[in-house]
């Protein structure tokens, strides 16, 4: 256990100290501030595409444009930019060391390959958690500081859900937990590909390609796509949105979490299996 702790500590240091790790922090900060600036300047115009459908019949009263809505919009980008930022670091954890040659020193130490790959996986999850914390701070707390708080208008393809302000914090907590689970899948997938491939770029590109293709399948309501959608992890990556429905579909959310967990277990198992058998020729 002590040995694993020492290896894990090493992996955490390496992951955090790598220059490319700071790209993720910078990008998140920039995107949040950029969206907050855009909403501050043009928020009403941006919202009109939603409220426009009601304009003939209703006036929408109350503070629609508030920090909660901004956070909801920013979190939508979870499916687009967050997986790339996660894969950028986690996809390089093993293959980067293979390409640079440091893997040789790592694997000629007493620690088993299983411990090493698990330590790297956990370090990847830790980095993912850091990214989410920064996202949470900027998307939620900074947005609330700028725009105030209040009820949140959650958009769904079937309409709107208004979540009352005093009923929202626990939903945010749950949403970020599910988001962590979702990005944990991305991290595990990237780590798995990193164990299989010997260069840094291919795992990152492959992860993004998989997510893009699966997301495109999810976007279109075609009968042939509806059959495979429940099995795609990208379908369940956005199950955090279900926390902003009324009533909250607990069974659906639990099912999505289970699917995501199963994906993580499968990816980590493949990583361990493959890494233990791999010949290090680099």
């Amino acid at each position, binding site marked *: 256990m002590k040995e694993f702790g020492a290896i894990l500590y090493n992996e955490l240091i390496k992951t955090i100290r790598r220059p490319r790790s700071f790209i993720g922090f910078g990008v998140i900060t920039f995107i949040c501030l950029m969206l907050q600036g855009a909403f501050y300047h043009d928020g009403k115009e941006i919202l009109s595409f939603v409220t426009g459908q009601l304009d003939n019949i209703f006036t929408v009263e109350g503070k629609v444009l508030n920090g909660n809505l901004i956070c909801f919009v920013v979190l939508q980008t979870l499916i687009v930019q967050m997986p790339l930022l996660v894969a950028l670091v986690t996809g390089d954890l093993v293959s980067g060391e293979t390409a*640079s040659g*440091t893997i*040789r020193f790592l694997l*000629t130490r*007493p620690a*088993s390959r299983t411990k090493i790959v698990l330590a790297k996986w956990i370090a990847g999850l830790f980095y993912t958690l850091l990214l989410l914390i920064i996202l949470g701070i900027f998307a939620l707390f900074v947005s609330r500081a700028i725009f105030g708080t209040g009820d949140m208008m959650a958009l769904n393809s079937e309409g709107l859900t208004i979540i009352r302000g005093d009923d929202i914090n626990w939903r945010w907590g749950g949403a970020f937990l599910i988001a962590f689970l979702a990005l944990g899948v991305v991290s595990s997938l990237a780590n798995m590909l990193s164990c299989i491939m010997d260069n840094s770029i291919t795992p990152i590109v492959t992860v993004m390609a998989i997510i893009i293709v699966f997301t495109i399948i999810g976007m279109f309501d075609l009968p042939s796509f509806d059959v495979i959608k429940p099995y795609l992890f990208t379908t369940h990556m956005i199950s955090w949105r279900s926390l902003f429905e009324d009533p909250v579909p607990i069974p659906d959310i639990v099912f999505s979490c289970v699917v995501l967990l199963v994906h993580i277990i499968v990816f980590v198992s493949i990583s361990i299996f493959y890494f233990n058998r791999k*010949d290090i020729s680099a």
Partner: protein
Amino acid sequence: MSIAIQLQSVTKKFKDFTAVDQLSFIVNTGEIYGFLGPNGSGKSTSLRMMMGLIKPSDGNIFLFENALATHRSSIMRRVGCIIEKPDFYNYLSAKENIKLFVRANQLKYTAKDYDALFDLVGLRGRETDKVKTYSHGMKQRLGLAQTLLHNPDLIILDEPNTGLDPQGIIDLRYLLLKLNQEQGKTILFSSHILSEVQEICNSMIVINKGKAVAQGKVADLLSLEKLHVVIEVNDEEKMKRILSESQCASFFEKNVSNEFWMNMSKSQIAPFVQLLIENNLEVCRVDYKNQLEAYFLKITQS
């Protein structure tokens, strides 16, 4: 005397290519063992198999008389190695890199210990610099530091002289001799600088195309070998006569002008030169190819 390394019919096949073929040898504890072979002979693959980086297709590997396949963790605590070139995390300083390895080996190092280690490899004063600013030679030294920091009983070095300046080569030679003679460490040493191998190794193995072609004590392997000697004189005809009458040289060939190439043992050189002088020949030059180099070329090209 116990056995530090034992390979038993170790084979490694990559698809339809056999990189190592039924390789067997023994390295006793306390030896400095030379591991030689031309490029592509399977040296690197063999070393990687010994360190568990590559799994053999067949055969067994024992380190400290324990099977590597089942006792890897305990074995690796006693082994330090440099395989190919040493690589580090370039975005960290030298000391931070060493700290990672210290932690991975679960050692407790004080500031003094770090200073002593960097002193040993000649990098004191540069330990806080990022590794990306290091030259190749400095990285080699840092690799040595990484290899030695946990005081291993067995040291495996794959071409450690690469990138070192002449002083660095000499320093490394003395360091290895010191580690072996004073601390009883076993050293497996692969190098293309054959003079170094001949200088410091007790035993050696030469492999070619994945197979062992010669192994044993260096002195025994080279004692029977004649040197390839070249002597330049001022009188060609007189030289030919002396050579044909003499029993020192087993073969001679005249190269350019008055240069004569011949095979003779080292102990015969001085008496033969003396003979030439006594016959009033002016000896302009006496030279010979490195014994191991000649031996190496002979057995790997045959």
